[in-house]
Structures are given as C-alpha cells and as structure tokens.
C-alpha cells in the first residue's frame, strides 16, 4: 500500500471495555513506567461507541521519515494545546463524565497558579533547595573525543544532568509541582500507581516532604518482585496497597487507582508521572518539566554564547523529552530528536517504539500513537528499561512527529546497554537505562554532524537502580 495514498478511515479506538492495557511491569528492572493509568476495563458506565465519533484522520501504514518543516508551517502559530486540550488531532479528554469536573478544576487551578507569584516563588525555592536545581550542563569531554573523526572533527556533546536531582531523575520536578498544586486545591490525599516502584518512590518522597497522605497502588506480583522498593515507600510513610485482581501487575494497579480517584475525587489528587493522559495532564506535566529547557537555554548562552544545535532525549511517555524540547520548539534551527526503545528489535514484535511502529488511537484518555493490533488491542511492549516500557506516547510527541518538527528513532536493548557502559567508563557517570537509549543514538548521529555542532543530551536519570540488570548482561 503506497505510503502516500491518503486513506480516510475511522480511527481505530482501543475499545476500553475489552482492551487490556499494557502491563509494563518488567520483572528485572526496578523502574516503573510513569503512565497515565486510565484503564476503563472495570467501569460500569459505558463509553460512547466508536461510530458516533466523527473525527477522521489520515492513516499511513508505514512509518513516515521526518519531513523538513515547511515554511508555511511556523511553530509559533501552533496551538499546543488548543482550548480542548488538542495538539492538532491528538490529545483531548477521553474520560467518563465523573472525571470531567476534576480535570477542568485541575486545569483552572493550574492556569491561575501559573500567574500566582507566591506559588511560583515557593515552587522555585523547593526546586532549588530540595531538588537541587539548577542541574548543570556538563561538557562531556571524553565522550566528545570518542566521536571525533580521524581528522579530529566532531560535535561537542553536553549532558543536561537531571541525574543529579534529588531521587535521581527528572521525575521529581513534576511530582513536587503537582503535590504543591494539590495542596493548594485543598487535597491532602495523593494517589499513584506503580509498576517497578520508581514512580511510587518519587511520589512517596514528595508526600513525605509535604506531609500529605500517600497511597500507592501496586500489583501483588510486582510487590513480591520489588520488595525493596515497597520497603522504601513504606519508610517514606506511604501506604502501599496490594492489588490482587487480573494479573496483579501494573495495569490492574492502574484500574484500582482510577476507582479510588473516581470515588474520592474531592479529597484526592492523582499524580500522573508523564505527558500522557487526558487534558490538562500532558500540558501541565510539560510545563512542570519545562524548567529543564529553560535552564539549558541560559546555560548554553553562558557556555558558548549561542543555542544548542541538536537536542536528544529518550522517549517513553515523553516527559523528559518535552521538558527539554518545549523551550526550543519555536526555533526551527534547533533539531529535536526523540529516541524510543526498540527492545529486541523493531521486527521482533518485542519493543516499545510507539512513534515508529504504532498507529493512532485512544489510550488512557488521550488520542495519540500507540502500539495496537488489528483489533485495536494494546500490544504488550518490551524494553530492558521499565521507564520506556509503555505502549503509548504523549499526544504532543505524536503532534511534533506528524508536523515533522521532531524526529524519532529507536535503539535496541543491546545498544542501550553498550551506551550505559560507554558513559560509565568515559565520564564516570552511570546513566539510567532509559537515558542510555538517548546516548546510544549518538553512535548513529555524530558521524553525520559537522565539526563543532553543539549537541545536548538529556541525562534524565542515574543508573544505580539498573546496576543489577546491567551486570547480568554486560561483561564487566
């Protein structure tokens, strides 16, 4: 089927009543996917049937290579998002009525707090003294040397050190801000779901800091495999509730968390960990991570008096990438590159390369690319890194891909492990396995770049948590 043939078809929606959302609880990794948990499996209230949707879209069967952004398509004119929470055709609010009020309340609060000086000052203070911002923009001299060609030319590689944040990843930027927002809304009860435990620990951390009640839902099977993370969450004062239904893993924990939220929506805030889910979450989470890109602009100016030329980040749900990219989206001379997980390889069927191999549908409350089969059932993804093990992706990434503003590639488990080892040994920085995907792409990217190109890679997390996984696979 010719890729250029326009096919107008009804969008294949993942049927919420029968779909099984991906279980991304990889057993070996201790990093849970920070996904929106909107699995509607257990809701009694019916969702509007497919036929009544009148949105049409163009589908192609093959992955589309990044098209150069045309002159008419000026990013400054794009609405990201529009008033309905859409990024082009992506995004939106595909949720039951019971949650609509909570979402609009959240959106109103978010907008008013954006202009609230006191709130912003309090948030800035916490980011500085508690989280440890600003994170450095580090010139990776030995890594840059590694990519120099025989004539001594090559790009300059800089690492944005989100690994140095409190709790060791970028996640806390958003967790802290959402908790502060919840407090402002008078909600003293925070819930989250977790697979391997990392998002649970980050949520429990901020709840301890602010003295809020914290409940983390975790599949009983995951709890057994991740006993240490369960213990950490309890040490932080969180209540970890075992979920025994279904396969007792992430997707079931997700359903339970939703049930809780629907029941307790007046007192409870749901901490969503990524730029996925229904509006306003993708926008909110992006804004809370945008500090990454803002700092990078300032630091780039200080260091070399200019802007970065290329930004590279790993993409699971897409939060760390949006955090870095957002500041620069309107500047077309800054190239944006997202790197997904190709797992065992794109053709193996065991990967999480949503933007490369996925198709458009609705998952967890938003329209976006997702890994689905012909019946619209979610395909179980795989990646060595749990944080990238997500069958969907944030709607804004889907938008940026279709517009050709950002390019998306993927990297296998093996390539990621090599990159993990490479950075550890060349710079003495052990990156998270998620981050290692972004670093792995440098192998393909750097040979194509002119001398002195300034590349900034988002070092989204540290890899202490991945040491046992890595040792199993690497010869060290």
């Amino acid at each position, binding site marked *: 089927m010719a890729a250029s043939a326009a096919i107008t078809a009804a969008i294949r929606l993942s049927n919420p009543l029968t779909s099984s959302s991906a279980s991304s609880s990889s057993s070996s990794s201790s990093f849970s996917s920070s996904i929106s948990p909107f699995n509607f499996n257990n809701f009694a209230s019916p969702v509007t049937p497919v036929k009544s949707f009148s949105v049409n879209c163009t589908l192609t069967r093959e992955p589309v290579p990044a098209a150069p952004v045309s002159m008419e398509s000026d990013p400054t004119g794009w609405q990201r998002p529009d008033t309905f929470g859409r990024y082009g055709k992506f995004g939106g609010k595909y949720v039951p009525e019971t949650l609509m009020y909570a979402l609009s309340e959240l959106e109103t609060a978010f907008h008013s707090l954006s202009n609230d000086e006191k709130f912003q000052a309090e948030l800035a203070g916490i980011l*500085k003294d508690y989280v*440890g911002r600003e994170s450095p923009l*580090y010139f990776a001299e030995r890594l840059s040397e590694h990519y120099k060609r025989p004539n001594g030319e090559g790009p300059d590689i800089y690492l944005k050190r989100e690994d140095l944040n409190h709790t060791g990843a970028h996640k806390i930027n958003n967790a802290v801000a959402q908790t502060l927002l919840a407090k402002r809304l008078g909600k003293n009860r925070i819930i989250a779901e977790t697979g391997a435990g990392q998002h649970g620990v980050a949520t429990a951390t901020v709840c301890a800091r602010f003295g809020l009640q914290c409940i983390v839902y975790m599949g009983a099977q995951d709890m057994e495999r991740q006993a240490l993370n369960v213990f950490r969450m309890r040490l932080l*004062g969180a209540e970890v509730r075992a979920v025994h239904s279904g396969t007792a893993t992430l997707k079931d924990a997700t359903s339970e968390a939703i049930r809780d939220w629907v029941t307790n929506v007046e007192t409870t805030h749901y901490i969503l960990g990524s730029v996925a889910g229904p509006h306003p979450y993708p926008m909110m989470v992006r804004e809370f991570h945008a500090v990454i890109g803002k700092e990078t602009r300032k630091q780039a100016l200080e260091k070399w008096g200019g802007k970065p030329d290329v930004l590279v980040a790993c993409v699971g749900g897409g939060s760390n990438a949006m955090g870095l990219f957002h500041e620069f989206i309107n500047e077309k001379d800054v190239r944006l590159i997202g790197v997904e997980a190709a797992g065992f390889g794109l053709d193996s069927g065991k990967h999480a390369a949503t933007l490369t191999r996925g198709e458009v549908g609705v998952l967890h409350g938003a329209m976006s690319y997702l890994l689905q089969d012909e019946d619209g059932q979610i395909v179980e993804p795989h990646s060595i890194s749990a944080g990238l093990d997500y069958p969907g992706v944030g709607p804004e990434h889907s938008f940026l891909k279709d517009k050709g503003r950002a390019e998306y590639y993927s990297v296998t488990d093996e390539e990621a492990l090599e990159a993990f080892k490479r950075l550890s040994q060349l710079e003495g*920085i052990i990156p998270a396995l998620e981050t290692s995907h972004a670093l792995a792409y440098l192998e393909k990217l750097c040979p194509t770049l002119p001398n002195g190109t300034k590349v900034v890679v988002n070092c989204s997390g540290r890899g202490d948590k991945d040491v*046992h996984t890595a040792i199993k696979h690497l010869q060290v």
Partner: protein
Amino acid sequence: MACNIKALSLNHQIVSSARNLTVDRKMGTASAVSVPVFPDTVTKTTTLSIKNPQSTEKLLTKTVDGKEVYSQGKFGRFGGKFVPETLISCLGKLEAEFNLVLHDSEFQEELAIALRDYVGRETPLYFAQRLTNHYKNSKGEGPEIYLKREDLNHVGAHKINNTIAQAMIAKRMGRKSIVAATGAGQHGVATAAACAKLSLECTIFMGSADMEKQASNVLLMKLLGAKVEPVEGTFKDASSQAIREWVGNLETSYHLIGTVVGPHPCPTMVREFQSVIGKETRRQAMEKWGGKPDILVACVGSGSNALGLFHEFIKDEDVRLIGVEAGGFGLDSGKHAATLARGDVGVYHGAMSYLLQDEEGQILGPHSIGVGLEYPGVGPEVSFLKETGRAEFYSATDKEAIDAYRRLCQLEGIFPALEASHALAFLEKLCPSLANGTKVVVNISGRGDKDADIVFQYEADRLSGLMA
C-alpha cells in the same frame, strides 16, 4: 548553582617541607615515641598511651606575616609524618604539588568547573521544616534545622569533592594510575568516577567483609571501569594493602587517600578540598538569615565531612562544633567505633592521633551499622579539636541511627546515609537544650538509598507488622 571561584581559591601558603626532607621526629613535650610504624599497626609500647593532654596553642596554625602556616603537618601534638624513609621524598613532592595548585589559578578554575558541572555544586542548604517542627516543644519553640545537602553530589556523598581534586593533581604530576582503599565503598566509587572522567587507571582495595555488605557499591566501581581487589579483613587491612601497592610503584601510581588521616600532607590536603562545604555554608547562611550558623553537627568516622563543614568556622568561637561518632552496640559493649570517646593516643597509618587500641597497642576492630564510620582511628586535626575543646564529640548507637534514618525519610522524604544518620540522631538529645530560633546546620554527608536493605535486615522483626 554558579560556583564562586574566589570562594574556592585557597589563600593559604604552606611552608613547603620539600626544601627539608628530613623528618622532624620531635614530639614536643610528649613522651618519646619509638620508631615510626607506618603503614603497619602500632608497636607494642605502653608509652604510646598518653593520658595527660598537654596545653597547646589555641589555634591550629600559626600566623606569620598574616598568612597561615602549617608547620610540618602538626596539629598541636597530633599529626606528623610517621613513615619510612622511602616515602618521605614522595610525600615531599606531593606537598610541593599541593602548595603549587593552591596558588595556580588555572587549576583552581578547572577544579571549580568540575565541582560545578560534574559534581553538581553548590549543594543546597535546605531548611527542614518538618524536622524542625518535630523538635518544637509544647510552646512551639525550638531550634531551626538546616541540612547541608552533600547527598545531592554526583555519586551521592561528599567524598567526590576530594577525589576529583586529587585525581586532577595526580594527572598533573604525570601519574597514570590510582590506588585507593575503601570501607563502605563510597570513596571507592567516587575515586572510580573521577578516574573514568580523567582517563586514569584505577585499582580499589576493599575488605572482603565489606565487599559482601556493600555489594552494590562494588558493582558500581566495576561498571565505572575500576579494578576491585579484595583484601582479607576490613578497611584498615585494605588501607595497608593499598599503601603497599603504592610503595611498589611510586613513579607511576598515586595513592588517593579518602579522608583526613595519614601522614602530612594528606590530612591537610583532604581537609582543604572538603572545606568547600563550610565555605558555601557561610555564604548560604548569610543569604538565608543574614548571619552565621550557631551549631554545626556532623558524623565522624575519620572526620573528612566534619572537618569540611567545620574548618571554615573554627576561628568563629561563637559557632559550636559537634561531631557524632558511631556508638555501635553501645560504648560499653566493645562493639563501636567511638575513637575519641574511648580511644587512646597513638600512631596509626602515619599520623599521631586517637585510636582504638588495647593495652598492648593492638588495633581494636571497630563496629558500626554505618560502615563508613568503621575506622579505628580518627584524623589528627579532629583529635586536636577535641583536645583544645574547640569541638565537642558525642556518639549515637546503631539503633539511634536507624531511628534517625527513618525519621528523616518520613518527615522530609530524604534518605540519609546511615553514617549521616548518626549526626541526625544526636539532634534528639541536642534540640531540647537549645534556645528558640537557634540555627543548627547538619551535614547530610551522603544519601542512603543504598542503606535501605541494611535497614530492611535490621528491622526484620519489626517489619512483620508492616508487611502484613
């Protein structure tokens, strides 16, 4: 987190002993000590247990022409260079190099950039609101607790401040490989990281008992490209082995000492590189409340994080300095590492200082749940601070440390290293005695996610209630 380079440029001048390579064996008015015994254990002689502290000059350093002078690395009667002749010239070269880098603005700038961009300095001075509330009495009065966040450094502890600087010195001196000894593994990881960054070969010696307890740290070192050599025993044995290894390769290798012990210039050097902690604290305190801290609290193993925080304020007599040692199972149990509380003066690893020794001068094996505090000695400068009464020293038991660990997790969402938990534990006794609004700064010398499984095991019984 812009680093103030001026704050880092050290305006000290060291009287270089390179001109005079003979060891000064005079001990002041102390009883005569027999032959130097570095790096082996203390020789059997009862004259080493000096019970009567002499009165010594108040200040650590004399001032000559307004500049500070370190004479032969002595802190009162402590310190010195108790080493065999073979090492004297090497130490002399090191001292000369150290003196040079202190005044080399290019080196200082490079170090400042590494500390800022690689290590992640400056570390925040964080107001611990909930911990402060915990210590408020019924009238709502109590001290204000601030935490110096050394846990946020790259690789998670204060150790790297020193390893990155010394690795840079080693490179400058043309050395190709580094050897180091590590107890808990934190210094080993920090050394391995610095060596990877600076492209130096790295061999870390670690006691086999410690390797078992800190398996994660061993993995980290290996991933960073270092070789990890097991040594039978614990840190003190690993230390001795590292020195032996170094002595065999003096031209090409560099022994990277992790703490403020050893022969001169090591204690001074390590303290200088850690003193960035105190310098930042002074500035941050001024910004936050327009004054100085009233009390500084830090855990003491050999003393590097404590001296790093204290040094800046030693001359400020109105700033109270409190060090907290490891009380293990209790001071009377014999299973602890409270060197200053229960030790005697002797020579160990090249310096005169307090150490845990029996009546025959044999080193006693220390114990603490905070493995990084398990050192039977303590830095000579720390001994001096005790003797002159400039600093106060207490101890906290394993259980008190574990309780403090849990407390900080629950109140502030920060996992402190079990070592640092000893400092936090002492707040329980300290805070009720403090006036309202007293500014207390506690050095969180490292992060403790690595210690969660130690706490897990310790709490196995209590957990049965939690895990249900």
